[in-house]
């Protein structure tokens, strides 16, 4: 284990259920290769905290017995990890060619107008964040966006309104 002093003691912890899942994930890999569980653990962290906070990343480093920098450099490489706080619902829309061919650009413009924010921003009430992402592997069902694990496909302006209404309830 890393030297844990009072100063470096993690300020957050996983819930017991999540800690159990994290331990199972670590056990999936050969002994001494626990760093392999880094991506799965970052997903668990984000699921709990909403983002991969510095404190959370330090905590993950302690669970994996690696240096915090090894976590930061990885979290910043991949697009799924939010390095800043986000809204309750993060809408990640696909901006890549096939979705745009199916009218994605118009639909996403409507989404931004509806929420009154641009890509990368969060609504004042903290409910919605919009992010643009690359291809989500659902090109035949475009335009597409994702909110957490859920895919929303064949989007139109009306459908976007319905989804926002539903989530705003």
């Amino acid at each position, binding site marked *: 284990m890393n030297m844990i002093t009072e100063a470096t003691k993690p300020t957050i912890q996983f819930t017991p259920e999540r800690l159990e899942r994290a331990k199972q994930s670590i056990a999936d890999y050969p002994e001494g290769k626990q760093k*392999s569980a880094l*991506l799965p653990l970052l997903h668990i962290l984000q699921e709990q905290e909403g983002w991969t906070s510095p404190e959370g990343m330090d905590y993950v480093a302690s669970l994996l017995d690696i240096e915090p920098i090894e976590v930061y450099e990885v979290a910043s*490489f991949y697009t799924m*990890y939010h390095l800043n706080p986000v809204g309750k619902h993060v809408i990640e829309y696909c901006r*890549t*060619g096939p979705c745009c061919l199916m009218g994605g650009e118009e639909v996403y413009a409507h989404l931004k107008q509806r929420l009154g924010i641009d890509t990368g921003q969060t609504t004042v009430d903290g409910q919605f964040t919009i992010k643009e992402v690359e*291809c989500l592997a*659902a090109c035949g069902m475009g335009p597409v966006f994702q909110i957490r694990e859920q895919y929303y496909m064949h989007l139109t302006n009306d459908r976007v309104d319905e989804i926002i209404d539903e989530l705003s309830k």
Partner: protein
Amino acid sequence: MATKILTEHVNVPGIETFDVYRKQGGYTALEKALKTMTPEAVVEEVKKAGVRGRGGAGFPMGMKWSFLAKPEGVPRYLVCNADESEPGTFKDHYLMKNLPHLLIEGMIISSFALGANKSFIYVRGELMYVIRILEKAIAEAKAKGFLGKNILGSGYDLELVVQPGGGAYICGEETALLESLEGKRGNPRNKPPFPAVKGLYQCPTVVNNVESIATTPWIMNNGGDAYAAIGIGRSTGTKLISASGHINKPGVYEIELGVPVEDFLYADEWCGGIRPGHKFKALVAGGSSVPILPANLALKLENGDKRLMTYESLSEGGFKTGTMLGSGGFIVFDETSCIVRNTWNFSRFYHHESCGQCSPCREGTGWMEKVLHRIEYGHGHQRDVDLLVDVASKIEGNTICPLGDAAAWPVASAIRHFRDEFLWHITNPQEATQPGAVYRGEMALV
């Protein structure tokens, strides 16, 4: 009726569960392999089948398997590449979501053949709901004795682990995937050594695509020769094609390799033709990385023969008039599509996804995006078209991994076949930047 090797039972209700999959003949191939065949015999059948890597590279799977080093006392690994991220491609998503047990059965057979006792399925993290489907299926298979210790009393042990990615196209490159699986940034490795010698944890490793691995149950049941009898020449078997864009029936279709492009595009069985009232302008046949073709060259070879959905026919004519089958991401463009805008869009993708290790790719993808952006937004210069060709040519072949080539080809091919459209943007910026403006000059629409 065309043979369906992967998707025959895809519409059976409940096929994602162990019981229904089993009732449809699932896991009989595994029983056959583990109880009646040696690992070497399994490899031999896959070699005879001539399956080529379905992730895009098209490298013969059996040959890849035979390169695997087998030093004494060192574990070997099989890693399934399910990081499907190539724009236009969504077939592995479809396969895993609908037929998780087919992939799992294939993973067990393939792991047995390679002598791996721990195997991984690396799924792009965005598909978390698919990961949950796979994990559930793995738990079912384990409960039935098809995974874990001493599978079906054969003495063979296998653990199967599903690893989520973190969102990075580059991790579809096999050595970047291995880095990512080790909990690192997805920077591709220098080769050699190849993964077959030093892969995961520096141990001998095979990385295969989802669709490739999913062919193995059928091959065990029917034999490699039967598989090789389907298709044409070195394009054996069937291929999942992800069809998107301006067609009547987007979706995933399993075709026997050798179907004419024209039939695939127009037949009701598949894409069902261009959407009503529109004409066929261009095709990206194998995912965003492969050269784009104008309609006439997509349908016919230079000699007038029909172009076929095979590795060979699609690449006929080289990059001058041909393209590649790639991952089978079939993106169709009608006459309302702006080739400049789409090329800029694809360039932005590669710029965003470049890992940044190699300067030609890191800098070149950025410059291509910038120059394409200024052409698209009415600030292009006459010299920009040749500048793009020059930048693309300096990326191609000069990088550790194929992302550089994949970034260069769409740009070079778009200019090769649609140069007048680029020039029109540059010489008519006011007209070209109107909302919905599209080049209507001379071109071969079908």
